[in-house]
């Protein structure tokens, strides 16, 4: 294509002459557009439409009901309960993962023996299927035979076994710990690539001026890393927002709804009770919330970039 563009008219097939060049481009784009639209755009629009109907496989209703689902959603304590849990999970896990991931990235940025091996080994938790991670943490934090209880008990930090997943006070925290363990390496990797784009000359210049490690980090590395940090944070927040596997495997939303998230709630409404209309409204509400999160991140990012210029 690029060759054809620079030397117009040469080597171009006959068909091209018959079609205006703009149309030709459109024609070539059509397959990609059709496939994207059918797998991405159509489901979204259909989901939006379903959320405005009372579709249910069980009652066999399928009529347009306007915003009735959203009115119901607004007054649904279950939904708001799940919404707050999801927000809490997203905020807590994203912040922890960013902070710890940054620390890991700073270490991995330094030259030391066996760095390549450590970098590869670090990615193991992230490469593991989440269901496996969930089962593993299920055993680690098991209330009776879990190693975490064993260690804490023998270290004298607790005086009796804690039932991590059976108590509303600890269940969500435990799930956040599992998520942090699993996804921090991914964050570290993203931030590491960001750190490597910071020119060494800047750091050397700072060192010549007598800046210590902390100062270099605070005034040179961190500001230059900020765009990467925000984009990585955005990725992570959007990903964390749709947490499903960990909750589904470890607690099923319990005890007492204390770990119910929007994904598990919408799964239950959609596939256990088969209320496709109301379930789609829950999913749409999720979609809107994610949109707002993305918007906040983007506005902040734009401000950062503007300030840098």
């Amino acid at each position, binding site marked *: 294509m690029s060759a054809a563009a620079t030397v117009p008219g040469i080597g171009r097939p006959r068909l091209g002459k018959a079609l205006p060049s703009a149309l030709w481009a459109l024609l070539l784009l059509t397959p990609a557009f059709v496939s994207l639209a059918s797998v991405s755009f159509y489901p979204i629009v259909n989901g939006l439409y379903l959320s405005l109907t009372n579709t249910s496989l069980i009652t066999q209703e399928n009529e347009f009901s306007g915003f009735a689902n959203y009115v119901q959603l607004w007054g649904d304590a279950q939904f708001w309960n799940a919404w707050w849990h999801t927000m809490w999970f997203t905020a807590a896990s994203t912040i922890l993962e960013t902070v710890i991931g940054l620390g890991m990235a700073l270490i991995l940025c330094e030259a030391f023996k066996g760095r390549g091996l450590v970098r590869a080994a670090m990615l193991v938790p992230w490469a593991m299927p989440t269901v496996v991670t969930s089962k593993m943490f299920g055993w680690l934090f098991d209330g009776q035979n879990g190693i975490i209880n064993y260690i804490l008990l023998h270290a004298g930090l607790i005086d009796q076994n804690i039932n991590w997943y059976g108590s509303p006070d600890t269940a969500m925290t435990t799930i956040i710990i599992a998520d942090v363990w699993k996804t921090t390496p991914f964050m570290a990797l993203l931030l590491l690539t960001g750190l490597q784009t910071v020119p060494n000359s800047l750091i050397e210049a700072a060192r010549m001026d007598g800046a210590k490690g902390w100062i270099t980090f605070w005034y040179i590395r961190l500001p230059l890393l900020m765009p990467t940090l925000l984009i990585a944070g955005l990725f992570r927040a959007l990903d964390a927002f749709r947490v499903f596997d960990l909750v589904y495997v470890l*607690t099923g939303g319990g005890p007492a709804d204390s770990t119910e998230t929007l994904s598990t709630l919408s799964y*239950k409404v959609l596939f256990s009770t088969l209320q496709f209309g109301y379930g789609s409204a829950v999913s749409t509400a999720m979609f809107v919330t994610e949109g707002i999160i993305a918007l906040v991140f983007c506005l902040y990012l734009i401000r950062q970039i503007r300030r840098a210029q």
Partner: protein
Amino acid sequence: MTDIKKGPVSGSKSAAHVTIADRRQFLIGSAGLLGAATLGMGTGLSVRRARAQSRAEISFASAAFFGKETFGDLIKAFNESQDRVLVKNIELPPPSSSTEVYQGLVQQLARRTGTPDVFSQDVIWIAGFAAAGWALPLDEYFPADKRSAYFTGTLNACTYGGKLTALPWFMDSGMFYYRKDVLDKHGGKVPDNWADMATIAAAAQKAGDVDFGYLWQGKQAEVLVCDAVEIITSNNGAILAPDGKSSQINQKAAVEAIQFLHDTIAKTKISPQDVLSWDEEPSRQPFTSGKAMFMRNWSYVYPIAQDAKASQVVDKVGVAPLPSFPGGKSAACLGGYQLGVNANSKQREAAIELLTWLSSTETQHRIALNFGLAPTRPALFQDEQIKKEQPFMASLEKVFTGATARPITPEYAKVTLALQSGISKALVSGNVQAEMDALSDQINKIVG
């Protein structure tokens, strides 16, 4: 341009490469075809085809159970046993993925095309399928005298709006496991009421014979509803009123029962707090490793408890009906799969024939022996062969007599989610009355 030139050359090359192998394959293939044709003519294939056409063709869909054989083998046996009906077996996911089985069935039934003609269904779906008009009422085919051969509890679960919409097939229910050796030290009598159970459990725990007095399942999941149905019914309470249109879960009987479950953790301390996050397997493990005195669970636990490789309590485990409250009767939550006929089936007579055969004494006998699934006909529990080959199953008749259905309502899927969340909240917080009031309002909104 050069690319275009290259293309056909390499293409013809590769074509030349395969010819020999190809020709050989073609020869083998045609020889096989020829042979088949001659064989077909010789053995009267045309006759067989003619007979197949006169047979009514129907389909059967079920969750895939297996033991010494599969449901596919069962259907094959039916096809060979007569020449009027030819059944195609549609295999759904295994019962452990019951949500997927449910979705698969609903999607097919909602199309109203008549496929599958006959299906098996978990007891909790029966009302929903009946209310949607997907399940054919079976009253005219199975009048009262034919029904008396089944357990009453199972029949109740198969009845919706006064009509029999499903036919009992095989069943399971909650039951009370106890440690014979420990019980001998503490009186030797299997407790038949909850208070006695708690006293013995606490004593055994205090004496250091076991770590846990009583294990049950408190995870926010379907099994919690089963545990709740059992204990509430054993206090003469109910989750829904008999007409299924209003909640009774905030009445005294139900509140007392849930309070008892909460007390096992908080007051009598015969259950570890962990039961709040345990479903069947996590509660089974401490029991079969000898750490617990009593346990509520399903029938699958017994074979594991008797397996020396997986259990430390071989020959030390007994099974009884669950205890009850004073004035109440022992209740066991009913599980298992029952049969239904698609209301849109175009081959009704054939479907009924298959249904009758599947639920017959002979087939239930075969299922009991080959799948280990308990019959819904009490008479079979006296069968000598079953007594010999499945002695544990034969001893369950008394337990199954108390089998109680979970709330019968077409809105069960919504009701169970509300129950799981509400009961879990009550058990965790201990504000049983307040949580049951809130739950009751919620259920009334769903079923009212």
